[in-house]
């Protein structure tokens, strides 16, 4: 029974411009107006452009989030010259992602043309299918074509003739989440030297529905990811709480370790293909590239004692069912309540990681700056509590918050993209207390009007 510490983090951005057409919004709009495809494809970014994009460099750890304050907006006009790999992350090419998509498939659902498979150097060992077979699958079975620009490189087959849950688009979404999750986890093991067989349990925190018509949300993508990443001694489960899932998962990973149940737990969230190109209309209208062209994935290894910030189970915030849905009620429940237990002020936390959506993506679509809204709400509570004055609110936001930098993929931007930074900064003694605060839009499922939220403190001291 030890203290739960964050031992390692790895963030992946898989560049997938040719999958933008299969995002939920683009695919619906393309069905109504197929001529739109040309407008979308001419605004897709190249891999070097995706690597040079400042928010992506923050996501992989080559830049701190607050470095974005000194780069003029829109950030896509100010490319930075940094590598595709960072201290706790990597931007991988579409070719590598397609290779992992094929590796993730154990049911012959993904077929890559032999000529294309032969070109793939990373990952190794990707098998190909004769071109004529691929074309026949598309024509006769309704397989979904996979493209690289105008070049047809493969397809994804439906998993069942009649079951709509196993239609090709759903399976592609689930395989994309599995592939990116496994990529992030594999890179975590490679970059740290941690043995995958030392993991006891994996908690999936993505939002895809993995199942069939009788159990549409059956789940346990975590175990599938663990299998692909070599965690032969682990089992797992998915924790479903919409966007709030990662913070719930971190808390329960920490609880399992503190209770002595497990010694190493992985929290894993793959990318959300459904959200690719979600705001493409706004981007095209404002002359921007299609910025939602990357699948984000986060892998966090929680271990027992050792180097790394401690997950403080004595400072967890919940949003109880009876708490009310006003922004004030939510932030009080998630932030004020756990801090008050220890006599801590809101200003005693060095940095808050709230919703970290990239405003370059959201503002052209009319959705505002999500992190800024959230930090202002937090700051407003600090004003109400007399900790700061109203005039000090902007300075509070700058000091305790950060610009958004994450792809808009639900669970991915929910606090966890900052964990890699927090780990480094806490270990270096530059930060002492970081609070992760996430929210979940439960109402989207039409089962309740409730919001959800969860928060947890991570610190460098016992």
């Amino acid at each position: 029974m030890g203290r739960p510490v964050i031992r390692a983090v790895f963030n992946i951005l898989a560049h997938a411009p040719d999958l933008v057409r299969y995002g939920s919004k683009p695919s619906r709009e393309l069905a109504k107006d197929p001529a739109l495809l040309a407008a979308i494809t001419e605004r897709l970014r190249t891999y070097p452009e995706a690597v040079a994009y400042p928010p992506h460099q923050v996501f992989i750890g080559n830049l701190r989030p607050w470095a974005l304050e000194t780069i003029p907006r829109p950030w896509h006009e100010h490319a930075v010259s940094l590598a595709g790999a960072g201290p706790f992350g990597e931007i991988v090419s579409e070719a590598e992602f397609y290779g992992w998509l094929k590796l993730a498939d154990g049911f012959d659902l993904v077929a890559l043309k032999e000529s294309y498979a032969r070109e793939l150097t990373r990952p190794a060992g990707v098998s190909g299918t004769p071109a004529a077979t691929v074309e026949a699958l598309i024509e006769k079975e309704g397989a979904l074509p996979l493209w690289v620009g105008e070049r047809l490189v493969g397809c994804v087959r439906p998993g069942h003739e009649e079951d709509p849950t196993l239609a090709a688009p759903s399976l592609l979404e689930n395989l994309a989440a599995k592939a990116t999750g496994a990529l992030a986890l594999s890179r975590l093991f490679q970059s740290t030297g941690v043995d995958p067989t030392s993991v006891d349990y994996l908690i999936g925190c993505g939002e895809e529905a993995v199942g069939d018509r009788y159990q549409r949300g059956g789940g346990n993508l975590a175990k599938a990811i663990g299998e692909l990443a070599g965690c032969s001694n682990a089992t797992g489960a998915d924790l479903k709480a919409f966007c709030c899932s990662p913070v719930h998962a971190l808390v329960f990973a920490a609880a399992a370790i503190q209770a002595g149940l497990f010694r190493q737990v992985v929290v894993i969230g793959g990318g959300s293909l459904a959200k690719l190109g979600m705001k493409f209309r706004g981007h095209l209208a404002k002359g921007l590239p299609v910025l939602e062209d990357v699948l984000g994935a986060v892998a966090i290894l929680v271990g027992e004692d050792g180097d790394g910030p401690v997950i403080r189970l004595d400072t967890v915030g919940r949003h109880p069912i009876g708490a009310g849905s006003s922004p004030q009620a939510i932030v009080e429940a998630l932030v004020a309540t756990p801090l008050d237990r220890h006599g801590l002020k809101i200003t005693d936390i060095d940095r808050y990681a709230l919703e970290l959506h990239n405003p370059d993506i959201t503002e052209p679509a009319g959705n505002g700056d999500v992190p800024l809204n959230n930090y202002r709400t937090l700051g407003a509570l600090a004003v109400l509590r007399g900790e700061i004055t109203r005039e000090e609110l902007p300075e509070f936001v700058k000091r305790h918050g950060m610009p958004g930098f994450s792809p808009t993929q639900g669970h991915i931007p929910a606090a966890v993209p900052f964990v890699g930074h927090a780990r480094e900064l806490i270990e270096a003694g530059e930060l002492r207390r970081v609070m992760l605060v996430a929210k979940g839009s439960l109402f989207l499922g039409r089962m309740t009007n409730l919001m959800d939220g969860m928060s947890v403190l991570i610190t460098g001291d016992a």
Partner: protein
Amino acid sequence: MRLKGKKVIAIGERDGVPGPAIAECVRSAGSETVLVTTQCYV
């Protein structure tokens, strides 16, 4: 804005003011909400 006696459709935003919170405010001003939703586009 005079809300008393009016019918209101409340469309909230998850990271702004959620629908139910708008509904509470306008209810206290004497109006009736006929539709409440909260949007979340992120």
